[in-house]
């Protein structure tokens, strides 16, 4: 049964307002070397069938899991 890990991230050109606040909080805690934080999403999908699911995952990401206008995604299939 394959498991798929999907990582969705905001496009680099887009301001990540949340990430900026977290970065400032880390700086306040004394981690002055943190120059940028960007927050994304992590999804785990358990699939019932084996076989090549890459095409299907790509389709799921393009249709629903990510919005290609503002986000990038990558995934790993774990057998």
């Amino acid at each position, binding site marked *: 049964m394959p498991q798929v890990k999907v990582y969705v991230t*905001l496009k680099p050109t*887009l*301001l990540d*307002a*949340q990430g900026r*606040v977290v970065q400032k909080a880390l700086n306040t805690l004394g981690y002055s070397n943190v120059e940028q934080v960007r927050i994304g999403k992590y999804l785990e999908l358990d699939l019932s069938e084996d076989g090549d699911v890459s095409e299907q995952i790509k389709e799921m990401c393009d249709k*629903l*899991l990510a*919005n290609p*206008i*503002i986000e990038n995604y990558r995934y790993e299939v774990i057998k």
Partner: protein
Amino acid sequence: MKFGVVRFPGSNCDQDAYYVLRDVFGKQVDYIWHQERDVKGYDCIVLPGGFSYGDYLRTGAIARFSPVMEAVIAHAQKGKYLIGICNGFQVLCESHLLPGALVRNTGLKFVCRHVYLRVENVSTPWTNSAKEGQVLRIPVAHGEGRYVAEPETLQKLNETGRILFRYCDDKGSISEAGNPNGSIEGIAGIANESFNVLGMMPHPERASEKILQSADGKVIFDSIIKTLLLQ
């Protein structure tokens, strides 16, 4: 002339839109449940504000695939009128009926207050009753209303007059101070290529009676009613 207001699980401005159309404007209006697959017979459909499907994943992302949306998209593709307010605007962007996307406000806060909008194009079905450059005082209520789009998209929107409303100050000048969410170029509302689809973050249905501090939102309903009458 018949209006339809879609109700998704989590819609919360559906009653306001329904009330304004029925009681303020005296028009025929129905609720359309999200499981409905037939929207024939409606001249103008409203996608109301709220938090459809809890706004899980992204705002509007799940609503976009609800059963009613297939019919709503077909309605828009036929050139019939469709307006998305707040969460409705987010659904329209997710449906690709409008370009761009709406993301987290720059200031991270949920902003719920009256803002000023400048009408940028009065030759559209949604603004034909407004005066050139008219300033409207209308409330916003959103956490994710920062409009973003690719530079080519923005250029096209500008060139074709599809930016209908921009955030401004009380005098009508576009400034950072008047922009509640960090939207690019102060964009508050845009139309599709054929102008039959409008998406806007501010709530005209919450500003259609003097008792609610402002009746400036009426101009949008007046305009679309005039458009439908002239059809």
